[in-house]
């Protein structure tokens, strides 16, 4: 009966005023929408605009409502759905801590090279890897590290931008 759930990445350009993130997040929780990841930072320090990138999931009807409801928030400049309206590039960064010695440690380092992760901290029995890529790539990396002594993961959530010369 119900249309299948789809994953969408939505960018929201907002005025960086007090409480603006709470408005965005409150909209999602208040109306029962999902947030899979959310990133936010000021992108223009003179205009004081921030860019919120939300990865959400829902039926096409729900996604349409999410966009419409976001546009209704007063401090919102614009809303773009990178999944439907423009081809976008998505990247996420993660810091991944793996502990171990011997073969497992060597294997962790070998896999990190395949994934082009950087080692940003090391002790005799631990690494912290910095890895950037699409969320699925990070998922795969984390899964591979799990049996090799994974102890901690910190992910930034998705940042997204369109391909080509056009701005948002």
């Amino acid at each position: 009966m119900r249309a299948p759930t789809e994953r969408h990445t939505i960018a929201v350009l907002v005025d960086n005023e007090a409480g603006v993130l709470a408005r965005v997040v409150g909209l999602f929780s208040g109306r029962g929408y999902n947030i899979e990841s959310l990133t936010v930072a000021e992108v223009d320090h003179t205009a004081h605009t921030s860019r919120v990138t939300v990865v959400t999931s829902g039926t096409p009807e729900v996604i349409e409502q999410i966009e419409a409801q976001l546009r209704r928030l007063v401090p919102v400049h614009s809303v773009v759905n990178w999944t439907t309206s423009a081809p976008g590039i998505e990247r996420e960064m993660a810091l991944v801590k793996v502990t171990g010695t011997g073969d497992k440690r060597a294997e962790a380092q070998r896999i990190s090279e395949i994934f082009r992760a950087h080692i940003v901290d090391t002790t005799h029995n631990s690494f912290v890897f910095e890895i950037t890529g699409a969320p699925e790539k990070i998922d795969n990396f984390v899964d591979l590290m799990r049996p090799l002594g994974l102890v901690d993961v910190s992910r930034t959530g998705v940042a997204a931008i369109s391909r080509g010369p056009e701005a948002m």
Partner: protein
Amino acid sequence: MDRDGTELKMAPPKVAGALELSGAQMVIRALKDQGVKHIFGYPGGAVLPIYDAIFQQNDIEHVLCRHEQGATHAAEGYARSTGRPGVVLVTSGPGATNAVTGLTDALLDSIPLIVICGQVASHLIGTDAFQEADTVGITRACTKHNWLVKDVDDLSRVMHEAFQIATTGRPGPVVIDIPKDVQFKKGPYTGPQAVKHRTYRVKSDPDLGQIVKAIELMANAKKPLFYTGGGIINSGPVASKLLRELVALTGFPVTSTLMGLGAFPASSPEWLGLVGMHGTYEANHAMHDCDVMICLGARFDDRVTGKIDLFSPDSKKIHLDIDPSQINKNVRVDVPIVADAAKALKEMLHFWKTQKKKSDAPALKDWWAQIDQWRAKKSLDYKASTKLIKPQYAIDRLYALTRGRNVFITTEVGQHQMWAAQRFKFEEPNRWMTSGGLGTMGYGLPAAVGVQMAHPGALVIDIAGEASVQMTMQEMSTAVQYDLPIKIFILNNEYMGMVRQWQQLLHGGRYSHSYSEALPDFVKLAEAYGGVGLRASMPDELDAKILEMIDSPKPVLFDVRVDPKENCYPMIPSGRAHNEMILSDAMEEETVVSDEGKMLV
């Protein structure tokens, strides 16, 4: 979208000679510049500087309510009956939290409210200070927008933006939270004309391509129906006038939501009555069977649609709304028009005339014949009685005896509200004030206070229930203080009638906590407040008492003792379609709602 980074949100330049005012004075000055004449409020510690500024001027009259919820509903009644925003002034903490119900009510019914709250001094925010509450946090979900003003230099801009946001586009409530130190501090005042919001834009002009598509559908319709809502009323009296013109040109039938009553005159032959859960048989069957539905300023609320997947299955739907988020929210539509109702109706009329469109007369004749068959069911009929006052009879008599007068009706929430909506005939917009979306018991009495403030000579009647009216009874005191001769017409059936009805239909007649025990003597209560108390228990004494109520120069509590067992029909039970209505003579005792329906409200 405006992404021009140059238009910065800066404090107004400190021009030599600019008007220097304290924050409190700025609030009053801004209200004055916005044309505000009355505000409703309640003082307290964190808002004293503004009350001090009120004391020292005569341009704006402050109405002291007895509870902040009462103040918000009074402001709603004021707004809904005038088309102007309602303004409320309350203190921090409990003052603000008491306003939350009125804010939510105004949000769901699109009523422009400006609620100004005092807040503890800036340096105390976050310290759990006395009467501190996170007002912007609490009201974020129940306002169109809100502000905490930390710098007095921002205050006049925020005040004017607040009016702009509350009154334009889809109207709604806003909150301005002002710390006490900001009310004392001085800064430059700027007038309303200087304000241009950075991001807030309203699209009110219709896309003409969509209008043409709509006209095309309408001209080819065999079974058309106008389904109108509160958006027509919010757009202003011009929209109601244009709607009448369009109906006169097309000859299409009209039904309306609860919020839209009065936009189209109930005396017109095209009027089918209220639609939805307690709508008429003809309106709901027409909704179900129509082939072109023209929804104007309504939002396909669950009280209107019934079971959504059985809602008007074979119709093409035109949907006019000023709020783009309403399009395709509950029901997929074929021709969306995002615009102000009056502007869109003007274009629809223009294109209908210039393209020389005609309704399909033979088809329309058949459609009306079908509608007349549904009308013949007389779905609002009830069993008359000479022993008991039937609530329907009471409303019919109230209507008959107030016809031709300058009448405004407010209601509480429940059976009496639905009977009033079904039976009281409204000919004009802004005459009917009721809590639709939120369904707030206790709305009607304070709303009547607000309406009477705006219309001193008018006959303002709150059609009430004995349960609802006790929720905000304290506002009788406000009515007495300000010589507001509001009439509280209580259909007293000693039950929370709609709760009792649902318990009868859904819960096996187990009337859990729906009996109004230990009721006050409303006649003595009225007298205690300094008003007039009346009571009627028999049908034959009703007319004289109603006339006595109308002629009284004071606020009146009229305790109308009605049949306690009467149910409100017709009714679409939860989880059923429009063509599965139950009528009054159907079944009274059996359970009619499926288990699935019981899950709904």
